[in-house]
Each structure stands twice: as structure tokens, then as C-alpha cells.
């Protein structure tokens, strides 16, 4: 579904991604593992169209996304749950969810979708009329994920969903990620807590200095000596 071929990208004169090739097929859970500054978030931002690649190709179902703006990429069925939640703080949770279904295709059946998403995340239903900014960090993360699901995406990308949350809350957030995966949504996830993500990932890529250095199934990567030494400290 999603294919990155020899992608190069960065910010102004700084090239962060040197050579990234990866693919995500329908029904998969793919994770990108890497240290700080390896280019994980940059990869997701390039896929979303927030930064323009300086080389290589990104294709979605064979269609080159180079000329598309971020809304155009949302149209292709790719939605991101951004790092740091990025909710609309002075709007209610319900309004945040409605904005998740902004595109006409999603808007057409917004009521049914809202019901599906709220069934998946009952905790969010209890908070519908509250301002998003008034929720705790964990609840905000749930709303951010629910908002992403509102678009009924073909591919949902998570950027560090557990960042900045207490260990107990991290568990809950992973529970929610698992529920998204169980609902059949294709997922691309970037996460510092690699133990959990590699366990649920069908495949994983290891990114170092803007290059993919390794790729395998999730559980295999978890057993790999290099991964263990570099990212698990064992």
C-alpha cells in the first residue's frame, strides 16, 4: 500500500533522511525503531507531506505523492496521530472527533463512524462534552487516536504515542493501539518503547543516521543482538 524508495528528506539545508526504503502492506503493523535523531519522525512527516522529499519516491497504491499537500495525502487514506497529541484544546472532545472526519468521504458517514470509534474507546465517550485541553495526558492521547480513527484511514500512523506519559498510562495507551490493530486498521508506528511495539509488529525497520540498516519481523528484531545492545541496553 505505502512504499518509500530511497527517500531523502530534511529541513532546509539539513538532510535527515539519507536513504530510507520501506513498505507497508494492507493489514500489517509496521514499526520503525531508532534512536533520537535517527529520522523516525521525519519519515512520518515526509509521508504526511509536511516536508517535501529531496530525493527518492513515496507512493501510495502506486500513486506518487510528491506533488500532494498534507490534505491531499489525507485524501489517499493516510492519517497521522502526531507526537504530543496536538488536539484542538479549546474545543470539546466531540468537536475534535468531528474534525478527524473533516474530509468529505469521512464526513458522509460521520455519525456511524463516531459510534464505531466510541464503541472502540468507551473512555472517550465519557469525555465527549469536555474541552480537549482539560483532559489528562493519557486521555488526550486516547482522543488523538480516536480522532485519527474518525478519518476511517487505510493507514494510521502513530508518532511516539507513549511519549511523556506515566508508565501506568503507557500501558493503557498500548491497550488502545492493540485495539486499533485488532480492528483491522493497517498501522505504521514509531515508538521509543520498542519492546511492546516489536511484539505486536508484523515487521520492523531499524533506522540509524537516516538509513534503514536492518529489517525483519518484529519478534525476530527483538531477539537480534544488535537491536538488543543498541536499543534495549542488554
Amino acid at each position: 500500500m505505502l512504499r518509500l524508495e530511497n527517500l531523502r528528506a530534511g529541513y532546509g539545508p539539513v538532510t535527515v533522511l539519507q536513504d530510507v526504503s520501506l513498505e507497508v502492506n494492507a493489514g500489517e503493523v509496521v514499526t520503525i525503531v531508532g534512536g533520537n535523531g535517527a529520522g523516525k519522525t521525519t519519515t512520518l512527516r515526509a509521508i504526511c507531506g509536511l516536508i517535501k522529499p529531496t530525493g527518492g519516491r513515496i507512493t501510495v497504491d502506486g500513486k506518487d505523492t510528491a506533488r500532494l499537500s498534507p490534505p491531499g495525502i489525507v485524501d489517499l487514506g493516510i492519517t497521522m496521530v502526531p507526537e504530543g497529541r496536538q488536539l484542538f484544546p479549546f474545543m470539546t472532545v466531540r468537536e475534535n472527533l468531528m474534525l478527524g472526519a473533516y474530509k468529505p468521504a469521512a464526513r458522509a458517514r460521520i455519525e456511524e463512524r463516531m459510534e464505531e470509534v466510541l464503541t472502540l474507546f468507551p473512555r472517550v465517550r465519557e469525555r465527549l462534552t469536555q474541552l480537549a485541553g482539560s483532559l489528562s495526558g493519557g486521555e488526550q492521547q486516547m482522543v488523538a487516536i480516536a480522532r485519527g480513527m474518525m478519518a476511517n484511514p487505510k493507514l494510521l500512523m502513530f508518532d511516539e504515542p507513549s511519549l511523556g506519559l506515566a508508565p501506568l498510562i503507557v500501558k493503557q495507551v498500548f491497550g488502545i493501539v492493540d485495539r486499533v490493530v485488532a480492528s483491522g486498521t493497517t498501522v505504521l508506528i514509531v515508538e521509543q518503547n520498542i519492546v511492546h511495539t516489536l511484539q505486536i509488529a508484523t515487521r520492523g525497520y531499524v533506522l540509524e543516521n537516516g538509513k534503514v540498516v536492518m529489517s525483519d519481523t518484529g519478534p525476530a528484531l527483538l531477539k537480534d543482538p544488535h537491536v538488543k545492545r543498541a536499543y534495549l541496553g542488554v
Partner: protein
Amino acid sequence: MDILLQLIANGALLGGVFALISIGLTLIFGIVRVVNFAHGEFLMVGLYATWIMASQLGLHPYVAALPLAVVFFFLGALMQRAIIQPLMNADPHIQIFATVGIGTALANGALMLFSADLRSVDLPWARQATDLWGIASVSRGNLVAFFVSFAATGALIAFLNRTHLGRAIRAVAQNRYAAPLMGIDVNRIYAITFGIGTGCVGLAAAVLAPLYPAFPTVGSFFVLTAFVVVVLGGMGSLEGAVIGALIIGLVESLAGYYIAPDLKEVVYFAIFLGILIVRPAGLFGVRGNE
């Protein structure tokens, strides 16, 4: 007692006029985060446009309000696209230069085209007084402006809260980074918002034309008060702008009578500063949302 009620009525109606001029400004500031220093000059252009439509085409100013608002919507959207958009990521100073420049150009353009003479729309009906339940006597035109400003504000608030596009506009104001990830075309929202804010000033011009003459610097006469109203109400808050406008209108009216006409600005700026000391984000402003 009679005089007090009359002063309150005058003040409230003046507040209505200020509110009408300020809502467009506060909308543009709140959403696009650009202070449009050409706002007063847009009002001036609108006053001239109403005058031309009334004197040349015989169009009633209140009838001219709708086409004027529509034309101004497109002018505002065009100005955003052509002049403001390329500067959206520039230093805020540069945006100030640009909007001040547009304002200066418009004012001097008007001076060149129409000279410095006052041009009034002849509508005696609007200047006639009407009696309000025997407690105050106010001009009909002022009453119309008052109700139009409340209707326009109410309509705008409903639009922002209840419609899909309105929600997208608020989303852009609250989180510019996340909005495109929802599929919202942020630049399009900027152009639309600038258009709506400018459309409001077009509407205001047509409604105010029977009360205030057009002259090249009429904009600066109103715009300082409009800025005070916007800051007082809490930048970007439409409700705040209306309340702020009513406060300024009442203070002007009461201070002008009980203290001294020359000192009314001193009084309202003193109150303005006092409120900002207590509530730095303005009456309805949310801290962190400015």
C-alpha cells in the same frame, strides 16, 4: 435620571457601531494571527462605495450592504492570497509594514480620487430620532447599526460553532500544525477568514454610511477604538469584542457628559489599562490562546 438613561442609550448605540467595525478585525486577528492595520481604510473604501452606489445608482445604503459585503469578502480573500499569504511565515513586523502600507495607499488613493471633501449619503430617515419607550430618543440609523452588529455577531458565532467550515476555521486558530493532518487546507481557511473579516467591514460601511460621511482619513477615526475594543474583549473573541465595544461606547457617552467631552478618551484608556492589569488576556481572552 432622564439624562442618564439617554446617555446609556447613546453609549450602547455607539458601542453597537464600534462592535460592528471590530468583529471583522478580531476575527482576522484571532484566526489568521495578522493584525490588519488597513482595516479602517477598508471601512473608508466601503463608505465611499456606498456613497457612490447611493448617489450614482440610487441604491439604498441598506440594500447596498449585501452586495458590498460579498464584494469585500472577495477583496479580502484576494488581499490575503496576494499580499499576506507570502508573508505568513515572515517576521510579524513585515506583516505590519504590509498592512500599514495597504492602508496608507488606500487613504492616499481616496484623497487623489475624491479630494478631502466629506461625502455623505443622503438618507434623512436614518438621522431622524425615534422614541424608545419614552425613556430615550435615538437616531434610527444608530438603532439599525446596533441591531445589525448583534445579528452579524450572532450569525458569525453560530457559523463558527455549528458548521463544518466554522469548526475548521477554529481548528486552524487553535492548532496550525494539526489542522492539515485532519485534511484542512490551512491557506484556504486563511483566505476565507480574511474574506469574512473584510466582508464584515463592508457590511459595517453600508450600515454606517447614512450616519458618518466618507473622507480619506475616516478609517483612522474609527480604527484606534476598534483596536482598543479587540484587545479589551480578548483578542480573537467575538463575544468579547461586542462586550468591549459596549463598554467603550458607554464610557465615552457617560464620561463625555459627566466629566468633559475632551477627557472621554482619557477615561476609557484608563479603564482599558485597568482591565488589562487585572486580565492581561482581555475580558474574554484565554491565556495562552493569544
